[in-house]
């Protein structure tokens, strides 16, 4: 009986008795969710353009952040370093298209997937060679990102919002909205969706596959840079950041691999769900449930929508 009370009643009693903590938990979940969504967005972009799960997205986050901080440490002013990093991500996109993707046109998806494995290990090695393995401090102040927190007294307690988290939420929202418009309303966006459906068909109607791939990988690179800056500011810039990319997997399962809105909604559901779960139900089983709870939430949704919340229902004639 106690177990049932602890599972079904007590968490809600806690929510009612300390509503400020509930609001704080929801906020932390939303911030985590937005940041997960940013990572998931990188995966979605590449998947939409090539039908390939880009295993390298996590290391792209690390590589972009390391490049930014590395350039700054080499004496380049912060804003110029930011611009140069965007340039580096463009060069990376061109390089990936020329060296990795172009020779693999029309190969099975699994071949392209394995190619992204190779790209991952190349970027790890190259990043360590150039920047070393030591953690670095994100240049938050130099990029004019705010520090500190805003605290509100409310609901009999207080809620603290970190300014960097507010900034992350705003930047992520703007990026997601821009990308949604870009893919839905522009000619390139439509071309990109055509490429995702069929390389051959897209080529036959005059769409430049190479150009599309460069655009998409470059966009994914910019998303990776934004993600790296935000996560780096919350912790440190190190190769540990690539582990965070794993958090995008349940978001993708939930939101669908091809949907930009799915990435953001999925991210928010996973972020809020895992924080609420860990905070209110975690102590019942010794805590530390976050890492698998996200998958349970995603799988729960899949029972009702196997294609994900916003994924396309694929019907293949057999």
């Amino acid at each position: 009986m106690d177990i049932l009370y602890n599972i079904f009643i007590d968490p809600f009693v806690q929510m009612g008795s300390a509503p400020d903590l509930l609001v704080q938990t929801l906020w932390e979940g939303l911030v985590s969710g937005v940041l997960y969504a940013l990572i998931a967005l990188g995966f979605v972009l590449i998947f939409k353009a090539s039908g390939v799960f880009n295993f390298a997205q996590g290391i792209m986050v690390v590589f972009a952040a390391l490049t930014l901080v590395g350039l700054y440490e080499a004496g380049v002013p912060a804003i110029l370093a930011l611009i140069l990093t965007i340039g580096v991500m463009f060069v990376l996109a061109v390089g990936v298209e020329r060296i990795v993707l172009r020779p693999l046109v029309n190969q099975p998806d699994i071949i392209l997937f394995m190619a992204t494995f190779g790209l991952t290990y190349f970027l790890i090695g190259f990043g360590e060679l150039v920047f070393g393995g030591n953690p670095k401090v994100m240049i938050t102040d130099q990029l004019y990102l705010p520090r500190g927190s805003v605290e509100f007294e409310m609901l009999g307690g207080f809620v603290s919002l970190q300014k960097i988290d507010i900034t992350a939420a705003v930047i992520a929202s703007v990026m997601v909205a821009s990308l949604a418009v870009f893919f839905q309303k522009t000619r390139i966006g439509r071309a990109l969706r055509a490429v995702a459906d069929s390389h051959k068909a897209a080529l036959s109607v005059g769409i430049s596959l190479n150009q599309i791939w460069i655009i998409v990988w470059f966009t994914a690179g910019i998303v990776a840079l934004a993600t790296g800056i935000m996560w780096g500011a919350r912790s440190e810039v190190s190769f540990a950041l690539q582990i965070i990319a794993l958090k995008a997997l349940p978001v993708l399962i939930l939101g669908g691999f091809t949907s930009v809105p799915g990435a953001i909604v999925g991210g928010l559901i996973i972020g809020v769900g895992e924080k609420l779960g860990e905070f209110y139900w975690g102590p019942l089983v010794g805590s530390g449930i976050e890492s698998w709870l996200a998958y349970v939430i995603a799988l729960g949704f899949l029972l009702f929508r196997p294609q994900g919340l916003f994924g396309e229902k694929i019907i293949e004639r057999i």
Partner: protein
Amino acid sequence: MVRKLSTILATAVVASAAFAVPAKAQDSVYVPLFTYRTGPFSGSGIPIANGMRDYLTMLNERDGGIGGAKLILEECETGYDTKKGVECYEAVKGKNPVMINPWSTGITLPLIPRAAVDKIPILSMAYGLSASADGDTFPWIFNPPNTYWDGLSMIIKYIGEQEGGLDKLKGKKIGYVYLDAGFGREPLPLFDQLSRDLGFELKLYPVPADSMQNQSSQWLSVRRDRPDYMVMYGWGALNPTAVKEAAKINFPMEKFISIWWPGDDDLRSAGAGGKGFKTLNWHAVGTDFPALQDIQKLVVDKGLSQAQKNTLGEVLYNRGVYNSMLIAEGIRNAQQITGKKVVTGEDVRRGLETLDLNEARLKELGLEGFAGPIKLTCTDHNGHRPAFMQQWDGEKWVKISEPIEPMADRVKPLLEAAAKDYAEKSTGWPKRTEPCDKQS
């Protein structure tokens, strides 16, 4: 950049030269170093790897090795991954290594049963299985100068001192944030026992490896539970993130105390909020020691080190130096006991078991005042040495306490019971047959 590339090339040349020399070459001993310069934990692994390698390289450069035997150094990259660590072990064990330094509790645990079979001593310096301090049960495992259980008992003792006595801990709440892996879980049995004995409430906040950089749930729980003190056993990115999160919820930093692993980089990453954070330590920071100056002159200045000059003397670099000092003394002792120049793993096991680093010997080594004396015996493979508390002042670590003795009366019975339990649960665990040597 050019300098870095040239250093890497030089290292590659030196490494290939080392490979070219057979491990059993005349007048040389083979010392593999398990390191992690890559991966999620490289922030902690790099300074330790540099300190370890540089001290032994310095001995090669200054003294031609140890007792006339050149040290052949070979790093094996584990990435702090247990599977890779075991692969490294399998790769080096045929080359007659004089000992293994796994540098991970997770890697140490599967190597413990293999050590006796392969006759290779394991040196898990202040990490690994706490119970392996019992030399009668674990003749091939050494974990000086203190176990994780000693460390926890020192932290609780220190907290007790802050509160006016251990009896004042009754009714207090102590939180424990830790890496949810072998290392972080290691002190849980003692923590649980101490909470029952001393009457404090223990709150656990495990951090899975994939949440190291996203600990908001754990620290929200801390905010809800309002522990009086927080204790941390963290590694890699867990440490700076935890300090940042603690600052975020306004947890008083002087009541946030860690085991000895946070490094300078961790606190720099944490920013201004980390000021006041405390950790245990048992050796000095800084380079004001002849041995460290020899490293500077003979290794770093000659371009034989991968360390940046300004990182010499940082806490984790010096931790690596301390580790290699133990390696070197184990080899030297083995040479003295056996009269051989080229010693084996079996010899070095005896060397470690007779380790007696007193003040005079530390002075000879150019490390006077660097760390306290330590003596190992056949039964005690740890030493259970005291450690002191240090505090981050915003730029550097400052020693803030006298040495704190571990609670031997509470830790020892538990260690003995844990060792006995390990042996009973491990089918066919061998009884010790190795004879004891006299102290060198």
